C-alpha cells in the first residue's frame, strides 16, 4: 500500500481526490492497481500499448524511478508516489 499524489488535472478521474492509496509491493504494481480501478486515469498516463506516456515521470518520494529500479522499484507503506510531467519547449526546433 502506498500513497499516490494526483496532479490537479487528473483528479477528475479519481473522484476528485488529491491523493489515492493503492496496493502493491513495487511501483509497477501500485500503478497497475491504481489505474485498474480508475481506467480514466490509465488513459492519461499510459499509451494504448501499455507504456507510460513520453511526458510522464514517476517519482518515489524525491527520486525519479528511472534512476532507481524503474517499475520494479520496491514501495513501502510510508512511501509517496508522484506523477510528474516533463515539460519543455521553445521557439525553434533543435535550437
Amino acid at each position, binding site marked *: 500500500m502506498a500513497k499516490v499524489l494526483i496532479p490537479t488535472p487528473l483528479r477528475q478521474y479519481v473522484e476528485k481526490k488529491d491523493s489515492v492509496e493503492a496496493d502493491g509491493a513495487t511501483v509497477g504494481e501500485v500503478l497497475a492497481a491504481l489505474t485498474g480501478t480508475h481506467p480514466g486515469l490509465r488513459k492519461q498516463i499510459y499509451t494504448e500499448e501499455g507504456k507510460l506516456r513520453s511526458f510522464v515521470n514517476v517519482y518515489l518520494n*524525491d527520486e525519479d524511478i528511472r534512476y532507481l529500479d524503474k517499475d520494479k522499484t520496491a514501495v513501502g507503506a510510508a512511501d509517496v508516489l*508522484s506523477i510528474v510531467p516533463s*515539460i519543455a519547449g*521553445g*521557439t525553434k526546433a533543435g535550437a
Partner: protein
Amino acid sequence: MIEISLEPWERMVAHAEATYPNECCGVMLGSVDETGKAVTVALPLDNASAGPQAARYEIRPADLLEADREARRRKLELIGIYHSHPDCDAYFSETDLKNSCPWYSFVVISVQAGRFDHANSWLPDADQTKAEKEELIWPKS
C-alpha cells in the same frame, strides 16, 4: 478560460522581461471551478535547458514536483505553465507542442525588444499534435 490576477501577472511579465533575450519559464497556481481557471500565484522556475536559452526552455521534473508540493501547502492547484518567446509571437511552436503535456494551460508571453508585447494561452492535446487557443484574461491596466 484562464484569468490571471495582477500580482502573478506582473511577476510573470517581470520575469519574462528580466530573462530577455533568453526564454523564461514558471508555473501558475490558483483555483479551478466551472467558470474557469483563476491564477493567483506565479512561481518562476529555472530554465534548465542545457544549450542556448534564447529559443529553448526546459523545466526540471524535480522543480515541477516541488512546485506541486508548494501548491498543496498553499491549498492551491497547479493549473498552468508559462514561458516566454523573445522577439517572437506568442504562438505554440512545434517544439512547444512536442514537449508539452495535455494536463495544463500553457501561457506564452511574447517579449519584443525586451518589453512585454502580448500573450496567449494554449491547451495541447494528449498526442502532442495540436494545441487549441484558450481564452486568456490578464490585467491590462
